């Protein structure tokens, strides 16, 4: 599955408004609702928060990847959001997060999206990739950066 099948301009925001963890989860999930990727907003948010309760998905490096694999997801999707004012996401390294990838994965069924998400996760370890996302000025820029994930294996 290509990354473009998971994310598009309607699932990207370059200026998140939230200032705390609770709000940013809802703000990101709102994009999934508008794009009709989830059928139950509250259930999806609850699944995200349950995963956070097992350990923050703020993984350090200013990155947070709230994710849930749940029945409330209709089609697999990815939301990207960033902010100039980093948010306290209770991250493992106590650093605030400014780059967010919210992952919506349906329960059961096709697993093709998981390979793509695995590749994205691997990319996030690399500073050049994170810097490119931070420097991006438009939604198009974000998509161009993300599209590079397809088919390219990191050595």
């Amino acid at each position: 599955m290509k990354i473009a099948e998971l994310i598009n301009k309607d699932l990207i925001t370059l200026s998140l408004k939230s200032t705390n963890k609770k709000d940013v989860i809802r703000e990101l999930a709102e994009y999934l609702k508008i794009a009709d990727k989830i059928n139950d907003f509250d259930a999806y948010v609850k699944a995200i928060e349950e995963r956070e309760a097992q350990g923050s998905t703020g993984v350090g490096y200013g990155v947070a990847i709230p994710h849930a694999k749940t029945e409330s997801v209709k089609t697999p999707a990815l939301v990207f959001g960033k902010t100039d004012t980093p948010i306290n996401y209770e991250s493992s390294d106590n650093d605030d997060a400014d780059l967010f990838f919210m992952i919506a994965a349906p329960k059961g069924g096709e697993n093709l999206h998981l390979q793509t998400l695995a590749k994205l996760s691997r990319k996030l370890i690399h500073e050049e990739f994170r810097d490119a996302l931070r420097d991006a000025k438009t939604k198009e820029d974000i998509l161009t950066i993300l599209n590079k994930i397809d088919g390219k294996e990191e050595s």
Partner: protein
Amino acid sequence: MKIVATTSCPTGIAHTYMAAENLEKAAKKLGVEIKVETQGSIGTENALTKKDIKNADAVIVAADARVEMARFDGKPLKEVSVSKAIKNAETYIQEAIDGSFENYKAK
């Protein structure tokens, strides 16, 4: 110097792979060979064989979900959380190089 590692996390869609990538990146930087098995929701990829484990000088287990440990009996081993591996992979690889892991005794 050869290291083998295994990574896993509760949902198995993100942390597992970030930890694997960071271990590989750190090993490359420090000039040691590494093979990282990922146990995610895709299933197990790059699975460690008996031979891999036998030939390894050190083992790193970065897992928040259960992984099979008996196969590492007698190997110098370090167990860390997956989020620690995402952050501190280089420290653990260096410790492996320095020989500071304790031998694992299967329960």
